C-alpha cells in the first residue's frame, strides 16, 4: 500500500503541470461548493431564526379554517377569510405546558386595520397583533423601543413600528396636499390617541387607543416587521367583534330564519308572496320620541365596551377571552415534529376543533416567499456545482487518456489490472485530498472575509433571501466535509471509465500510443 502511495505521489509530481491544472479545478470546485453552501445554510437558518425568535415561536396552534392559515390570517380561494377563534384555550395551554420541550406559551390575536391620529386626516394600513403583554414580550424580544415603553399587562395601548409611524406621517402629508392645506402634524408622538378601524364579525368598527411606544426590530432579521403593530387584546377583540357572543342574545321569530333552511328555492315561490300590508300613516309609538328608537327592555345605557368587558369578566377575566393562536417556544427546534404530533393527537382525542402547526406554516406567505427564493438560489448553486463537476471529470478523463501508453508499459512490465486500478485510485485520492484541503482553506477564508464584510441586501428580494438587511455567511463542518466528499467522488468516478478503456487495450498497442 505504501509503495503504491509513493508511486502515486511520484507520478503526480512527474506530471506536475497536469496535476496542478486538475488540482486547481478540484480546489475551485470545493471553493464554489463551500461558499455556495454557506450562503444557503446561513440564509435558511436566518429565516428560521427570524421567524421563531420574532413572531411564530416553534409551534402554532389554531382553530380550523377552510383556507390556509398562518399567523397573518387565513388565505382562502375567495380572498381573506376571518381567522378562526381557538377553542378550549385553557385546556390546550395546560396540555402544551406539560410537554417536556415546551418552555413558553403566549396567546395572540391577528387582524388587519387602518389607523391614524385621532382627529387628523390621513391613515395608514398595518397588521395588528393583539397580545398578552405579560407573556408576549418575554417570549419574543423582537421589539426595541425607540420612544416610549412597552405596553403593560392589561393596559389599553398600542406599540407602533417605526416604519408604520413614518408611513402615517407620509399619509397625513399626502392627505393635506390633496386637500390643499398644511399638514396638521409632521410626526407621531408617544401619548397620541390612535384611531384604529377594522372590519370583523362586529362589522366596521373604530377604536381609540393611546400610543405608548414606537419600536424597531431588535435583530434586524424580522422580515415584514414594518407592518406589525402591537395592540392590547381587548381592543382587538372589540374591533373584530370577538366578544359579541354571536347572536344568542336575540330571540328570533320563526319567519326570521325559515328561508335559511330552504333546499328547493322553487318551493319559496309556491304562493302569491304578497302580503297586502296596510301601511300605518299615523305616527306610531316609537315615533313619539325620535331619540328613543331602542326597545325598552334593552340595556340602552350600557356602552358597548362595558358590555364586552362584562362578558369577558363573566368568562373568567380578560385572559380567558377569545384568542386566535397559541404560540409555543421549545427548548430545541429538533423537537418540533414530535410536539406538533403529540398536540394534534391530544386535540383529536379531546374532540377539540383545532390543530398544531410548525413555525413554517405559522410564517405563511413570508416563509413561502423565502422558500421560493431559496429554491431558486439552490438551483443556481446546483447548476454551478454540476458545471464544476463536468469540468473536473472532463479534465481527469483527458489526463488519464493521455497516460494510455504509460498504462500499456506498466502492463507489459507485468503490472496486473488490480495494481493499475489501485494506482490510479490512489492518485485520485491524493490529488483530491491535497487540493480539496487547499479548497477548504480558501473557501473558508473567502467565507470568513464575506462574514466580516457582510453582504448588504440591496433590495426587498435579497432581504427576504437573507432574512435581514445583510447576510454574514458562516461555514459549517457539514458543508466543508460535504463539499470535499462531493468533489472527491466526482474525481474518483471520473477515473473509472478512462482507466477501464486503457486496460482493455493490448499492452503492445497501448505502448504505441503517443
Amino acid at each position, binding site marked *: 500500500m505504501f509503495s503504491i502511495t509513493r508511486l502515486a505521489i511520484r507520478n503526480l509530481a512527474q506530471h506536475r503541470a497536469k496535476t496542478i491544472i486538475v488540482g486547481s479545478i478540484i480546489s475551485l470546485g470545493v471553493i464554489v461548493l463551500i461558499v455556495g453552501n454557506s450562503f444557503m445554510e446561513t440564509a435558511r437558518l436566518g429565516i428560521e431564526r427570524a421567524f421563531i425568535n420574532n413572531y411564530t415561536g416553534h409551534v402554532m396552534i389554531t382553530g380550523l379554517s377552510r383556507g390556509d392559515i398562518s399567523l397573518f390570517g387565513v388565505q382562502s380561494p375567495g380572498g381573506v377569510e376571518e381567522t378562526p377563534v381557538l377553542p378550549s384555550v385553557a385546556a390546550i395551554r395546560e396540555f402544551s405546558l406539560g410537554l417536556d420541550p415546551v418552555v413558553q406559551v403566549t396567546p395572540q390575536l391577528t387582524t388587519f386595520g387602518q389607523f391614524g391620529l385621532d382627529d387628523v386626516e390621513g391613515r395608514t394600513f398595518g397588521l395588528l397583533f393583539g397580545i398578552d403583554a405579560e407573556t408576549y414580550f418575554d417570549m419574543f424580544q423582537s421589539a426595541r423601543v425607540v420612544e416610549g415603553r412597552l405596553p403593560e399587562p392589561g393596559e389599553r395601548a398600542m406599540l407602533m413600528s417605526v416604519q408604520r409611524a413614518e408611513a402615517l406621517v407620509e399619509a397625513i402629508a399626502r392627505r393635506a396636499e390633496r386637500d390643499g392645506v398644511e399638514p396638521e402634524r409632521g410626526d407621531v408622538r408617544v401619548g397620541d390617541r390612535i384611531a384604529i378601524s377594522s372590519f370583523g364579525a362586529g362589522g366596521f368598527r373604530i377604536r381609540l387607543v393611546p400610543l405608548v411606544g414606537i419600536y424597531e426590530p431588535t435583530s434586524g432579521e424580522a422580515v415584514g416587521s414594518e407592518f406589525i403593530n402591537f395592540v392590547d387584546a381587548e381592543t382587538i377583540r372589540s374591533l373584530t367583534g370577538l366578544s*359579541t357572543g354571536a347572536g344568542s342574545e336575540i330571540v328570533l321569530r320563526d319567519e326570521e330564519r325559515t328561508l335559511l333552511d330552504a333546499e328547493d328555492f322553487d318551493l319559496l315561490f309556491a304562493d302569491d308572496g*304578497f302580503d297586502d300590508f296596510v301601511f300605518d300613516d299615523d*305616527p306610531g309609538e316609537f315615533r313619539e320620541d325620535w331619540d328613543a328608537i331602542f326597545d325598552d327592555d334593552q340595556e340602552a345605557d350600557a356602552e358597548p365596551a362595558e358590555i364586552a368587558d362584562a362578558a369577558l369578566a363573566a368568562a373568567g377575566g380578560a385572559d380567558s377571552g377569545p384568542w386566535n393562536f397559541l404560540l409555543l417556544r421549545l427548548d430545541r427546534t429538533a423537537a418540533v415534529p414530535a410536539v406538533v404530533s403529540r398536540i394534534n393527537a391530544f386535540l383529536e382525542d379531546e374532540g377539540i376543533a383545532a390543530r398544531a402547526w410548525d413555525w413554517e406554516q405559522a410564517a405563511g406567505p413570508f416563509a413561502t416567499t423565502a422558500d421560493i427564493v431559496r429554491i431558486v438560489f439552490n438551483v443556481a448553486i446546483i447548476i454551478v456545482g454540476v458545471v464544476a463537476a463536468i469540468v473536473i471529470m472532463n479534465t481527469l478523463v483527458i489526463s488519464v487518456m493521455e497516460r494510455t501508453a504509460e498504462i500499456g508499459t506498466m502492463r507489459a512490465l507485468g503490472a496486473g489490472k488490480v495494481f493499475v486500478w489501485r494506482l490510479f485510485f490512489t492518485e485520485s485520492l491524493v490529488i483530491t485530498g491535497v487540493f480539496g484541503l487547499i479548497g477548504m482553506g480558501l473557501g473558508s477564508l473567502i467565507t470568513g472575509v464575506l462574514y466580516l464584510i457582510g453582504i448588504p441586501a440591496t433590495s426587498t428580494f435579497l432581504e427576504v433571501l437573507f432574512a435581514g438587511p445583510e447576510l454574514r455567511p458562516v461555514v459549517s463542518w457539514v458543508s466543508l466535509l460535504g463539499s470535499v466528499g462531493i468533489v472527491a467522488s466526482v474525481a474518483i468516478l471520473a477515473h473509472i471509465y478512462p482507466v477501464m478503456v486503457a486496460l482493455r487495450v493490448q499492452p503492445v498497442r497501448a505502448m504505441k500510443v503517443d
Partner: protein
Amino acid sequence: MFFHRTARRASVVLGLLFLVPVLGADTPDFDTMLREVDQLGQFGDRDFSGVYTIVSQVPGQDDSVTQARLFRRDRSDQFVLIILQPQIQRGQGYLQTGDTVYFYDPESRRFERTTLRDSIQGTDAQNRDLVRGNLSQDYRVTDWELGRLGSFDTYILDLEATGTGVDYDRIRLWVRTDRPVVLREENYSVSGRLLRTLLFPRYANVGGQAVPTQILIVDGINDGERTQITLRDPSVAPIPDGVFTRDYLERVSR
C-alpha cells in the same frame, strides 16, 4: 315532386314571415320593465321606515343576528340605518346624504366614509339591498328568455352594466311576467363568476308599491353561507328632516 318541394319551401318562408311579427310582438319593452321594477320599490314623496332582522349562517359557527332600523327618503337619496342589536354594536349607524355614505361608531364617536356596497355588519347583506335600486340607469338587457320559478312565469333577463360605477358587472333577474316584481337576482363578477344569489319570496304591497319583506342571500363563493333579511314594522309615516343628519346618529346612540 318539384311541386311538393316548392310548396314546402314556400310554406316555410311564409311561416317565417308570419313568425317574425309574432316574435316582435311578444318581446317586452325591457327598458320600461326595468323602470317599473325601480319605480315599484321607490317611495317618491313619501318616507319609509322599518326594522330589518339579518340572520347570517356560516357552517360550523353560531348564527349571527343583527337588527337594524332603517329610515329612507328616496326623493333626496337619503337613508339612516341604525343597529339595534346585538348589544355590542348597538348605536352604530350608516347615513347616506346624496352620494356620500358615512358609518358612525358610538364608542369612538367617529364618522367614517363608506359605500353602499359595504357589507352590513359582516354579513352577505349590503347597504344597497335595503335602499332603492337603479337598474334602469345602470344596466341594459343583453338577453332574455321565458322561464318559470315556483308558481310564476318569469322573464329571465341578462343585464350588463352600462358604466363602471356599479357593484356587479353582470346581473341575471327573474321578473314576474304579470307584474314587474323581481323574484330572484344573481350577481356576477366581471369574469362571470356567480358571487351571490338573492331570492325575494315575500313582498309587502301598498298603494302599488312593493317592498321585499323576506330576502334570502346565498353566497356564491363560500359554500353553505346564507343570510336572511326580514322586514317588520314597515311604515310610510313622515320622518323629521333632523333624522337624516350626523347629529341625529350621535344623539340617538347616547
